[in-house]
C-alpha cells in the first residue's frame, strides 16, 4: 500500500537554528513528490516538486532534496514567519493520469524569535 510518513510531528526552533524535516514514502513507483506549506485556517500552498532521486530545489531559506526512499526539507536560519505546517505528498505512477496525491500527516514547525 502506498504510504507517506512525516517526522517529526512537531518541531520547535529558535530563530536562526537550522534543521530538517523528513518525509519517508513507500510507493509502487514514484511519479513525483510535492512539498506544501499550510498556515492555520488556510489552504496548502505549493512549494516544490521533485521527480527523481538526487534532485534538489531551493526557495529562500528552504531546500528540498529527494532520495529513493525519502525527502528532506532543510530550513536554514529560519525566521518566525516560517512557522507553519509543512506537508509532503507523493504521486505514484499509477495515479499520474488521475492527479491523485497521497499526503503525509505533516510537520508543524514553530520558530521562536
Amino acid at each position, binding site marked *: 500500500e502506498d504510504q507517506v510518513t512525516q517526522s517529526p510531528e512537531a518541531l520547535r526552533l529558535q530563530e536562526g537554528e537550522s534543521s530538517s524535516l523528513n518525509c519517508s514514502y513507500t510507493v509502487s513507483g514514484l511519479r513525483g513528490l510535492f512539498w506544501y506549506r499550510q498556515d492555520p485556517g*488556510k489552504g496548502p500552498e505549493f512549494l516544490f516538486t521533485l521527480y527523481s532521486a538526487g534532485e534538489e530545489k531551493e526557495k529562500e531559506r528552504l531546500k528540498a532534496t529527494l532520495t529513493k526512499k525519502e525527502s528532506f526539507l532543510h530550513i536554514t536560519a529560519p525566521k518566525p514567519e516560517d512557522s507553519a505546517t509543512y506537508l509532503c505528498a507523493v504521486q505514484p505512477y499509477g495515479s499520474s*493520469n488521475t*492527479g491523485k496525491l497521497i499526503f503525509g*500527516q*505533516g510537520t508543524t514547525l514553530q520558530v521562536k524569535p
Partner: protein
Amino acid sequence: DTAVSQTPKYLVTQMGNDKSIKCEQNLGHDTMYWYKQDSKKFLKIMFSYNNKELIINETVPNRFSPKSPDKAHLNLHINSLELGDSAVYFCASSPGTRREQYFGPGTRLTVT
C-alpha cells in the same frame, strides 16, 4: 486576484440537512479536485475531474455528489449530512494531472 476560491468559508448545519460548497478557479486549469482534511490535519482526496469528466471517486459515500458545470467550476453537494462529515473541505486545481495542485482557502463544515 484569487486563484482558487470557495464559498462559503464556514458552514454550520444540522444532521440530515443537504448543503453545497462552490469552487471556482481562474487559472485556466483543466483538472480540479475535492479534498477532505480531518481533525488531525490529514488531507485525503475525494474526487478528481479532468475537463469536466470525473476521473477519481475515492470510495466516497454516494451522499457526496460533485458537479462540474464547466472547467472553471467544481461544486460539491452533500445530502443527509452526518456528524462524521464535519471537516475542512478543500478545492484544488492543476494544469494537468501530473502537475502541482493549487488549493483554495477551505470550507469548514460543522454538523451538529
